C-alpha cells in the first residue's frame, strides 16, 4: 500500500511568513509523529498524535509552532512568523498503535528554507 506522504516536498519562504506542512499517514495508522532534522544534526522530536490528541506538546520549539490532526488521519504542522533557524527538513512518521513499541514509518520529508 501507499506509504507516508508529505507535501510540499520543498518550500522556500521569506522570514516572517507563515507556512503549513502536511502529512498523510499510512491508512489505518493511529499514531502520527513530527520531527525536525537540521543540517548536520539528528532528528528532533516535535510532537506526536494518538488519534486526534497530542499527549505531550513540550517538544515544540516555540509557541510559533502548532500542529493538529483531524479525523485521525491527515496532520498539519504550522509555523507562524518563520525565522531562518526554522530551516530544516520536517519529517512525519506514522505507526499502527501508539505505545512507543511500534515501528515508525517515515515520509520523505518537507525541506523548508527560510530566507
Amino acid at each position, binding site marked *: 500500500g501507499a506509504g*507516508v506522504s508529505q507535501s510540499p516536498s520543498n518550500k522556500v519562504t521569506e522570514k516572517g511568513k507563515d507556512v503549513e506542512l502536511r502529512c498523510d499517514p499510512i491508512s489505518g495508522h493511529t499514531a502520527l*509523529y513530527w520531527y525536525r532534522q537540521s543540517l548536520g544534526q539528528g532528528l528532533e522530536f516535535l510532537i506526536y498524535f494518538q488519534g486526534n490528541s497530542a499527549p*505531550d506538546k513540550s517538544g515544540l520549539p516555540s509557541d510559533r509552532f502548532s500542529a493538529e490532526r483531524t479525523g485521525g488521519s491527515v496532520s498539519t504542522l504550522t509555523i507562524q512568523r518563520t525565522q531562518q533557524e526554522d530551516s530544516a527538513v520536517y519529517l512525519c512518521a506514522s505507526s499502527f498503535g501508539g505505545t512507543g513499541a511500534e515501528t515508525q514509518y517515515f515520509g520523505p520529508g518537507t525541506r523548508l528554507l527560510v530566507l
Partner: protein
Amino acid sequence: AQSVTQLDSQVPVFEEAPVELRCNYSSSVSVYLFWYVQYPNQGLQLLLKYLSGSTLVKGINGFEAEFNKSQTSFHLRKPSVHISDTAEYFCAVISFGNTGGFKTIFGAGTRLFVKA
C-alpha cells in the same frame, strides 16, 4: 531527561570488513531501543528494535544489535559490510513522560561509509 549518544559521527570501513556502530543511552527505567537507517536520498527505515526478552536482536540486511543494560548500550554490528550499506544510521530510545505520552529521542547519527 533521556539522551542518546552515538559516539562516532563517521565510520569509514572497507568492504567485507566487520563494523560496529556505538550507541549509549541514559535511562533509569526500562526502555525501547531502535536502530533506523537512512540510505542516500531515501527516507528512514527500521533496521531492528529491542523491546524485551533476548538481548541480541537481529534485523534486516544482516545487522544485529546487543542490548547491555549495565552499560546502557545498544551497539549495532555487522560481520561483513557491503558497499550498499553506505548510509546514515540513527539510534533511538523511547522516553516516557509523566503525562502518559512519550517522546522518541534520536542520536545525532553515524555516517557509515563503505569503501571498495
